[in-house]
């Protein structure tokens, strides 16, 4: 199998290039894309990428795999390799630091903008703030996001206006707290979102839901934020 990897080492490269490697796929079993990178790194230690847990929990190894964003550690070769060729590029829309490592500063800035923590100005109870089963169920499909940035960096609205459009991941987290029965800052949260860019720049093309490695649906969360904004503003 031919593996083509996006290479950019700022100290030596004036511009990015693609470098090809030959990789022997073992017979009788499938490998994950991360396994391929790990083996290639033994041959060429200069290949640089992020990784940590290797089981789809940390969200470190998000990259563009044969044209589609995903986590290298949970993407099997059998699902993505076509014509015996694997092309690995960094996540699109963010500045490249080196090879497959991108600068996530803008992504995290947008995440911070939604105040991704529980706000409750009522006196704290003796033990904990309880929820009913129904209230807790509203958080399903929201709290599981691991901030891998696969969704946000596959969104053209984020590519074109990364400073103003929050992006699917931040908006999913925003709705996670808007939907939380224990949060008391809903009015303030909604007021912060009511401008032409933060939420409404989403054109519902659903790239985010299509690539999410955790099978979450940020588009649905954005739709629910819009509904809340309509109720809030009318």
């Amino acid at each position, binding site marked *: 199998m031919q593996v083509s990897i996006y290479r950019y080492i700022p100290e030596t490269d004036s511009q990015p290039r693609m470098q090809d490697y030959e990789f022997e796929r073992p017979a009788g079993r499938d490998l994950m894309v991360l396994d391929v990178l790990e083996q290639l790194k033994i041959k060429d230690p200069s290949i640089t990428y992020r990784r940590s847990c290797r089981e789809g929990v940390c969200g470190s190894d998000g990259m563009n795999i044969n044209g589609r964003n995903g986590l290298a550690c949970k993407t099997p070769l059998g699902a993505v390799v076509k014509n015996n060729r694997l092309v690995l590029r960094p996540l699109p829309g963010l500045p490249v630091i080196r090879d497959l490592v991108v600068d996530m500063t803008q992504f995290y800035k947008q995440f911070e903008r939604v105040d991704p923590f529980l706000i409750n100005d009522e006196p704290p109870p003796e033990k904990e703030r309880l929820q009913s089963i129904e209230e807790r169920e509203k958080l399903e499909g929201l709290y599981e996001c691991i901030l891998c940035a696969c969704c946000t960096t596959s969104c*053209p*609205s984020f*590519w*074109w*206006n*990364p*400073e*103003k459009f929050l992006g699917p991941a931040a908006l999913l987290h925003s709705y996670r707290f808007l939907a939380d029965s224990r949060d008391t800052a809903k009015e303030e949260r909604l007021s912060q*979102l*009511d*401008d*032409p*860019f*933060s*939420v*409404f*720049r989403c054109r519902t093309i659903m790239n985010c839901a299509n690539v999410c490695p955790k099978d979450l649906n940020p588009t649905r969360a954005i739709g629910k934020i*819009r509904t809340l*904004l*309509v109720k809030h*503003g*009318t």
Partner: protein
Amino acid sequence: MVVNVSNFSRNGLSDFLLQRLTAVVIAAYVLCVLGFLWLNPGLTFVEWISYMESIYMRIFSTLTLFSITAHAWIGMWTVSTDYLNEHHFRSFGHVFRWFFQLFVTVAIVIYVLLGLWVIW
């Protein structure tokens, strides 16, 4: 970086609702005219003029004209702030966007004046 200053209402929710409301008005107008044509198969020019010159249709046409104007401006403003920005054209982004928005504004003003002249 793109700014909100040339946005229709400078408020995301208002633009979002207005774009949908104007789309409903435009769709209703199209259905109304198509329905009239469908119900009058042997329509003559005199009957057509008489229908379009009725006060109800004149008001409806004017309402649709302004709906198209608002709908078009919100849509074109979105397109311009998506594609004519610094990410695509570096320091020229805001210049291209400014000229494009000026062109759209002039086109819309001409369209409205011409439309009002035709309707009334």
